[in-house]
């Protein structure tokens, strides 16, 4: 709310700002996040290693399971959002649905962070196959889109379709990431710990 791009001159308060203008700064920040991740992943020399979690056979399986957890929680996100918006026939939103939505989202996001760091630090932004290129692009875009979602959540006076749209983009990106990594991993190497 406080930051206005290029508006250093004292202007009347942001009351005149339309719904669209409120999206500009969050979208710019989100784009910056996505670009930063991508550029880091491209420039940083991949080390091939990072911390591993005991009990799993390889970093690939750890990441696949974390990503699968996040993807399942993402399904909870869509379901709880549909209930909150009253889009599920014959279901009235229970009082705890908001908390379910918030906490499943928070946990899903936190599950993705170690995976992303491992990707960026150990493997980098790669493009040697279509799957890998798409995964790299979607991975960077996901964190940008999630940032946008978080930044516009508290804003008042947005058009009603904005949050569902951004949420859907975040969800679609996460599922695309999962399909190009964990699904590929499990179908290539088998479902293993």
């Amino acid at each position: 709310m406080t930051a206005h791009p290029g508006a250093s001159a004292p202007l009347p308060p942001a009351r005149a700002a339309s719904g669209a203008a409120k999206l500009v700064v969050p979208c710019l920040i989100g784009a910056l996040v996505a670009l930063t991740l991508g550029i880091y992943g491209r420039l940083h020399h991949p080390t091939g290693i990072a911390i591993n979690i005991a009990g799993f056979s390889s970093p690939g399986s750890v990441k696949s399971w974390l990503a699968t957890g996040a993807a399942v929680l993402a399904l909870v996100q869509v379901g709880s959002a549909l209930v909150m918006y009253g889009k599920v026939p014959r279901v009235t939103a229970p009082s705890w649905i908001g908390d379910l939505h918030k906490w499943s989202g928070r946990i899903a996001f936190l599950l993705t962070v170690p995976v992303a760091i491992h990707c960026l630090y150990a493997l980098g932004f790669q493009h040697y196959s279509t799957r890998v290129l798409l995964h790299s692009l979607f991975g960077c875009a996901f964190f940008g889109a999630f940032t946008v979602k978080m930044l516009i959540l508290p804003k008042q006076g947005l058009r009603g379709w904005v949050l569902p749209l951004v949420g859907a983009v975040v969800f679609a990106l996460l599922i695309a990431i999962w399909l190009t990594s964990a699904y590929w991993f499990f179908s290539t190497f088998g479902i293993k710990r």
Partner: protein
Amino acid sequence: MRRNTPLITLLTGAALGVIVLVASMLSTPSSTPVSYSAAATSSPASPAAAAPASTSAPAATPASTSAPVTEPSLAPSSPASPAVSPSAAAASAPAPVAKSPARATYAGRVGGGGGSVAVAVHGNQVVAYVCNGSTVEAWLKGTADGGRLVMTGKNRARLSAKYSSGKLTGDVVAHGTDYSFSVPVVAKPSGLYRATAVVRGATVKAGWIVLPDGTQVGSFEDNSDSTDPSAVEAPVLDVGTGTARAGDLILRATPVDGLTGSGF
């Protein structure tokens, strides 16, 4: 308060990311971006690095003397400025380089050009493949110790080699023929690929070596569990999709990559 929670979520995620990143950096052996590639990429910048390095040289000497093995192996990698390599090694790698795990894939033609060899080094584990594109081929496994590889495979195949400054030099014996080689580090999509499948109860196994100029050689065993499997030329591997088509069988190849540990 309520308006801030999404921001707190973001910041918590960012903090977690920083923690994981720092933990990853700490768990990375100090010289890991593998000395040869690091040295190779940093050598153009060496004039700039030389000045501070020379001033800090006295302080760094104990470290470099404690790791005498590193100097001979590193020195050839930056011939343009031999003065910088010991101090650079001491600054970036106080631990002996020879002991730290190397992660890389080497590939190239064997001497005489009768085939190719690819060796994926991932820490102490090594997987290698030698192939002439048809009948002569062997998979080998072994260990790396101090830059020296010893590997064996089926039918008395064996490989011994050592690596220094981005080159792997040695000999491989397969099908009774001794091939010598000296091959460089390669980066994806060049490298080693393997595919296995079970067809009518028999294990089929294919391997490909893709060289930096795009050429590839590969062999295909249609019953690799037999004591002396017969090999034929493998179908062309589509490196983009990682698949190859052998008749009505679609082979899905996995990169055997020393850098990432894929395929080990």
